């Protein structure tokens, strides 16, 4: 009997602690509501540890490895150095199959938008850290691909620039980007993938070919103005580490396609 009471008290304490943690996260934005939601991400994951539902478990997370590329350090030449370091990782991971919707429905605290990471509250940092840095593999279709312009991540180089690629959950085109997940191929990773070209990616988009994008889940707080217009969420796969194309025999690496 006493054991049962103790267990109940423990359960109440755990639930109370969890409610405090969620309350501390403040307003959580999602692509669907564009405003606050009450619950935020649920706890779960397939590989153990605390990750939002449908995402790989926290045990799949690993210490990022970064390199200086063409003289440009991982933190870039300005902007948000933590964000740039996340974008500039080059290590391969154990990518776990993840549904498009699991990422598209991820929430984030509204206080993070357009705010440098060193100004985030500890609860906002904790909320983002639950999902950021997980190795995911997502199937979908490409809506569009473009070479981007200079940015602090790549030290504002006019030659080393990211590819912006829009992943959607059905065959479509540029007009379907309002529900897309932005996935980015960085020059540091592309250096090892000569077959990753904008023209080849555009061909996959135009033909409605199914693709599998593997890489690191990352939150880009800088572009809330694009939500529901040219992106569906601020969560990205960035950097992309592998691009596979669906073929008759399964999946073929884009380099060999």
């Amino acid at each position, binding site marked *: 009997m006493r054991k049962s009471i103790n267990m109940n008290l423990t359960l109440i304490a755990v639930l109370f602690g969890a409610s405090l943690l969620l309350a501390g996260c403040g307003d959580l934005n999602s692509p669907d509501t564009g405003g606050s939601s009450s619950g935020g991400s649920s706890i779960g994951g397939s590989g153990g540890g605390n990750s939002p539902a449908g995402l790989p478990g926290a045990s799949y997370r690993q210490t990022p490895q970064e390199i200086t590329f063409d*003289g*440009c350090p991982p933190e870039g*030449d300005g902007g948000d150095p933590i964000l740039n370091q996340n974008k500039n990782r080059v290590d391969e991971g154990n990518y776990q199959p993840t549904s498009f919707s699991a990422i598209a429905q991820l929430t984030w605290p509204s206080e993070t938008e357009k705010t440098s990471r060193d100004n985030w509250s500890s609860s906002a940092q904790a909320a983002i850290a639950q999902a950021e840095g997980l190795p995911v593999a997502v199937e979908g279709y490409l809506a569009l691909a473009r070479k981007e312009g200079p940015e602090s991540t790549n030290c504002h180089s006019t030659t080393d620039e990211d590819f912006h690629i829009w992943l959607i959950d059905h065959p479509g085109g540029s007009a379907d980007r309002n529900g897309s997940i932005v996935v980015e191929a960085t020059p540091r990773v592309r250096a090892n993938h000569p077959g990753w070209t904008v023209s080849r990616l555009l061909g996959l988009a135009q033909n409605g070919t199914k693709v599998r994008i593997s890489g690191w889940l990352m939150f880009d707080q*800088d572009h809330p103005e694009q939500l529901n217009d040219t992106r569906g969420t601020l969560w990205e796969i960035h950097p992309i580490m592998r691009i596979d194309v669906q073929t008759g025999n399964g999946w073929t690496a884009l380099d060999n396609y």
Partner: protein
Amino acid sequence: MHKGIYLNVLMHVEQQGKPASADAASAESQRILDELARQPATPPNNLTLSVKRFKVQPGPDTTGTHVAVLAYMEGDQDAPQDFQKLATDDLRKRLDSALRHASASGLKVAVHSIEEATGAPDELADESEKA
């Protein structure tokens, strides 16, 4: 390393203490920026300026008309050094110099802010595709 950056310049334009007309504000902003864009690059950074877009838009106050200018600058700098600061400081210096003297138009122009336009390449490409 050869670098580039897109900058949003928000201009504030008044005429005799009132907001200038949208056409006049836009034309005056364009005249000033075009003049700056014609200036030759100077060593060691060899900064050049080009103007991509002018747009009259609501601003942070009602005393003037606000013109958002999307500018693009290129130059040379060691990779890890802060190009945003270099380009922003240079453009502000050029604008301060150009705005020091009252223009023949009678318009009073001031710079409200200069910020990096991180989404500019996508915006320009989307506008181009829609046109």
